């Protein structure tokens, strides 16, 4: 017997004329997420129906629980069209719920899409309610405060479902285009990427590697983080940009207290160039206001000015506990806190500028003469495609 899942799309209802496009992306993402589970997708008006073999139901539910773009889903049973068949299937459903709860209040909502069916919606609800009431003395009807609603939909087949599980919500990944995530080995950036993926951005992540000043273990850690994120958002590309020469030149040419900000500016500039190459429309960072010296409003203005595209900073107003909470929920926290840092002390300013003067800093950066090095670094980047 097949198991069916009825999926309720997230915010798609709000999207008016864009709805067909959003649904198309959602279906494509679903097929991708379920690529290892033999399945069939069917459109049911405002719902999507996923049909899988019964044995695949648990892993399908696992995938759906973390799938971005649906607000919820319900496992559904299929029944034959006769009232006896419907009663039998409904008993299976109700019986298992009662075993969990003991007693329950419920109501039936029936829909008859197949107008040739002898009973109308009201008639089905009444007849089925009476039969179930006889079978299950612990079941009481409550129109106002039901513990669950037994849905009966009569179409070519008859679908019955009761419980809805919460989905991840958000917009289908890809409907907002592509964003470049500046990914470090820390706690914040994977969270930022995840939140923006939920606003519909497909991600390309960029990591700046300063070997031998940072070790291969940091690179491995970032790759692991990218993999964890990819699993949540349906895949991403990771670009690893060799950054040592740029760090060294900044170190040689810039005043000590500016090296951190100049490194950040260089990263932003390279990410911006990468965005054009990747046809992306925005940059994403894990910056949170005034968390560190390079994230004061003045510093954000300076580093942000190296991007021509909008810089999305979903964590800008969040405190650390909240960010850590999300990192734990999406499973990146444990990797992020591994003790390998992505920046070597050799390059970090001991007392970095906290309130950089914009014009002066811009001119000072231009004076470094590293524009060509930034382009060169991007050309030398290594790209790794990670499936979701």
């Amino acid at each position, binding site marked *: 017997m097949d198991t069916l899942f009825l999926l309720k799309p997230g915010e798609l209802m709000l999207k008016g004329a864009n709805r067909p496009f959003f649904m198309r992306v959602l279906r494509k993402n679903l097929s991708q997420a379920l690529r290892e589970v033999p399945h069939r997708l069917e459109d049911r008006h405002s719902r999507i129906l996923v049909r899988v073999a019964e044995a695949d139901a648990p892993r399908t539910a696992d995938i759906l629980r973390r799938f971005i773009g649906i607000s919820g889903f319900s496992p559904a049973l299929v029944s034959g069209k006769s009232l006896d068949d419907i009663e039998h299937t409904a008993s299976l459903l109700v019986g298992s719920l009662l075993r969990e709860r003991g007693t329950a209040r419920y109501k039936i909502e029936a829909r008859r899409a197949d107008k040739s069916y002898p009973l109308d919606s009201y008639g089905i609800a009444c007849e089925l309610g009476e039969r179930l009431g006889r079978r299950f003395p612990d079941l009481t009807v409550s129109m106002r405060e039901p513990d669950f609603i037994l849905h009966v939909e009569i179409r070519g087949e008859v679908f019955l479902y009761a419980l809805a599980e919460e989905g991840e919500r958000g917009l289908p990944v890809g409907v907002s285009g592509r964003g470049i995530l500046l990914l470090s080995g820390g706690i914040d950036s994977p969270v930022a990427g995840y939140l923006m993926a939920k606003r519909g951005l497909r991600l390309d992540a960029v990591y700046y590697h300063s*070997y*031998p*000043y*940072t*070790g*291969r273990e940091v690179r491995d850690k970032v790759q692991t983080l990218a993999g964890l994120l990819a699993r949540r958002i349906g895949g991403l590309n990771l670009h690893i940009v060799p950054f040592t020469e740029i*760090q*060294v030149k900044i*170190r*040689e040419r810039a005043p*000590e207290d500016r090296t951190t900000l100049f490194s950040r500016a260089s990263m932003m500039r390279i990410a911006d160039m990468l965005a054009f190459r990747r046809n992306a429309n925005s940059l994403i960072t894990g910056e949170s206001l005034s968390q560190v010296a390079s994230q004061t409003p003045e510093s954000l203005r300076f580093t942000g000015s190296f991007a021509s595209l909008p810089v999305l900073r979903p964590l800008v107003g969040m405190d650390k506990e909240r960010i850590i909470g999300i990192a734990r929920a999406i499973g990146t926290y444990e990797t992020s806190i591994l*003790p390998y*840092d992505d*920046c*070597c*002390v*050799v390059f*970090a300013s001991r007392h970095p500028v906290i309130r950089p003067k914009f014009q002066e800093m811009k001119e000072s950066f231009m004076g470094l003469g590293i524009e060509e090095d930034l382009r060169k670094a991007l050309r030398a980047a290594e790209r790794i495609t990670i499936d979701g």
Partner: protein
Amino acid sequence: MPSGGRALSRTAEDARGAGASGVYLDWAATAPPSRETADCLQETSREIFGNPSSIHRWGGQARALLEESRRIVAEELDCDSGLVRFTSGGTEANNMALLSLLRRPKPAHLVMSALEHASVHEPGRILEKFGWRVSRVRRGASGLVGAAEIGKALRPDTALVAVMLVNNETGQIQPLEEISGMLRERERSGGPRIHLHVDAVQGAGKIPFSVRGLGADSLSVSAHKFQGPRGVGILVAGGGLEPLHTGGGQEYGLRPGTENTPGIAAAGRALAAACRNREANLRHAGNLAAALLDGVRSCRQCRILPEDRLRRPGAFSPYIVSLAFPPIPGEVLVRVMDDRGYGISTGSACSSRKTGDTRVLEGSGVSREDAFSSVRVSFGPDTTEKNVLDFVHDLRREVELLFKVAR
């Protein structure tokens, strides 16, 4: 030398390095097992598999091998063979000696040098949680943790003193005869009996000593440091220690569990081999250390750790040399030299100036900055003078390049 394990080249970055096989200069971390060790492990695993506790001939055969190994170890370390207990390694041996104190009726006091390996330092912290008080003694004006320094830390209720023979980061040798002499002297003049534990992991098979000569009540050794197998240690201990694990009563009840006969047999042989060649190897290591120190001394910013090493070469094991090129982080230098084909090591981590473990070096009188930049070079019998000269040559070049970047 045996293959240094560079066969698993991971990235293009490795290709810059010298030679395909590389030069292994991290013998203090672990020594490549000798051919004899590998052969003995293999043969014994296959042939003498019986449980030494079994009565039948297979058990008897294994028991004979076990006891023969015990005799060999006792002879090489100069102690009664009835005191030799085989363990799973140096860490377990040290833990057994220290945590045995938990079996005493009430907590008291112990003294250890501030230079101890984590496998002594950390059990000390556990004891503190159980109410023991621990004095950690830094080196004194003499540059040593000697009898005077230890003596000052003793209290009427001091139960144990732990001082390592050869420090694993700097190679510094502590004057244990002097310390045990002082303890026994106090005992003779009516003082209480104080247990002396010696971590000899970096000394066994390398520098001459004997358990009797040191006057140790317990002493720990690890087989893989002298080209024996991983997973075998030795605790020389008299009746004063109580077990924390119990079971079938093996190893005089101190370390129960079916004995690792193949590992123990290989360990005994490796120790005998190391001791047989000890004098020649020690001279060789002395030449290597001298060549290294000579080669780097003139290097800009080179610090030899601790600073007084050059003045007191006799107080250091020539097998271990600690260097620093501040402000180059030790970790960075290790990576760069790895790319050049040399395996060396460091204790502290880049970028975590605050959290890097510099406890031992700082206890040796090294500044935090130098400790953070430190690298350890360690030799073995297979290291050649050419290895060291090549290393010095490449090190000097890399350090110059890194200095251009470092502030």
